[in-house]
């Protein structure tokens, strides 16, 4: 395990799961997505025209906020794809891989969520993460694509179709994001400590890394020079 001693006064070793660029990109995406979910569901719930606290804070109607932040997400994704090509390729390759043992991991997952005794896997992402990555990224891509179509068309019959797709994609993506937040927050016993992989330096307790991504943790240990 590539553990690093922290500076004086902090003695617990840690391992870096995600670098700074990835963490900032992830944070920017989730902040925009959370605003879009909040404003989007407010509209679905029939509250258009009654400003939400967020709309009041920004001094603009929820619909305008939703469109503006949607554009921001589209720009963010474009920047990510263009400037982070290598990372995107790796993300896709690691998310699409499948091993026979992954089925066993998935079968044990419901209990492991509470016990922390996950089956072994050799990926950078665990099999559950891979499935989530694929469906969630596809769902977000559909939302961004149809959202762009909606704001560019303004109206009309094609708009009505895109609106329906946009709404159904929201229904699919919302529970996935909620599940992702639940897992990534670390409140479930099996995932305790995992929230640090994307926050506050992206450094994990090595025990947490070994529990969740054993082969990756082993590779980290092997590939990094001691000290």
């Amino acid at each position, binding site marked *: 395990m590539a553990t690093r001693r922290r500076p004086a006064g902090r003695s617990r070793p840690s391992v*870096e799961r*995600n*670098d700074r*660029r*990835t963490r*900032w*990109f992830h*944070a*920017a995406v989730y*902040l*925009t997505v959370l605003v879009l979910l909040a404003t989007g*569901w*407010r*509209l*679905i719930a*029939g*509250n*258009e*025209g*009654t*400003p939400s606290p967020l709309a*009041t804070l*920004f*001094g*603009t*109607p929820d*619909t*305008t*906020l*939703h*469109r*503006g*932040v949607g*554009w*921001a997400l589209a*720009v*963010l994704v474009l*920047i*990510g794809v263009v*400037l*982070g090509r290598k*990372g995107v390729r*790796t*993300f896709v390759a690691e998310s699409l891989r499948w091993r026979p043992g992954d089925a066993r991991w998935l079968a044990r997952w419901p209990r492991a969520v509470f016990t922390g005794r996950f089956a072994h896997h050799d990926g*950078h992402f665990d099999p559950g993460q891979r499935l989530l990555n694929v469906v969630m990224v596809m769902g977000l891509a559909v939302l961004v694509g149809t959202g762009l179509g*909606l*704001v560019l*068309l*303004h*109206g*009309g*019959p*094609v*708009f*009505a179709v895109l*609106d329906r797709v*946009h*709404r159904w994609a929201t229904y699919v993506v919302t529970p996935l994001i909620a599940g992702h937040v639940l897992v990534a927050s670390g409140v479930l016993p099996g995932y305790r400590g995992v929230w640090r992989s994307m926050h506050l330096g992206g450094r994990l307790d090595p025990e947490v890394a070994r529990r969740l991504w054993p082969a*990756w943790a082993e590779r980290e240990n092997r*590939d990094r020079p001691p000290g």
Partner: protein
Amino acid sequence: MMKSSIARPVSVAGALALSMLLAACGANGTADGAADGGAGGPKVTITSPADGADVSMPFTLRFTTSVPIGPPDSGREHVHVFTDQDTADYTVVTSPSFTIQDLPPGKHMVGVTLQHADHSPAGASAQITVNVTASGGAGAATAPSGGDSGGSDGGYSGYGGGY
């Protein structure tokens, strides 16, 4: 070792600033006097009550549009009705009449703006001033009529476009 590096640093503050900029770019125009979308553009005209009329609560606002209106998820234009210049607090209306309730006595501005299905301004707006002589209640809220002349749902306000 595989270290995820998906993008160069994109600050959260930058993203929010961008979203604010874009939001500002798309902000609704206000109904500052009757206006239309320019030559050949869409139009909305308030036909009743007359500008400056005395009204008692509730009263029916009637208007005409040069384009068909309907629920936003149908892809058609719709109308936002608001009072006293508060363009952020409005009711989505998809038929040409709408009952306004609960305005306190006194002078009030009633405005309508034509909006695209994606809620961006279509460029047409109109406004009148009414003098409320009797009130059914406090506050300045508007509420759907439930269907009077010209529409089966005088104030469609339950839409959620989700975009």
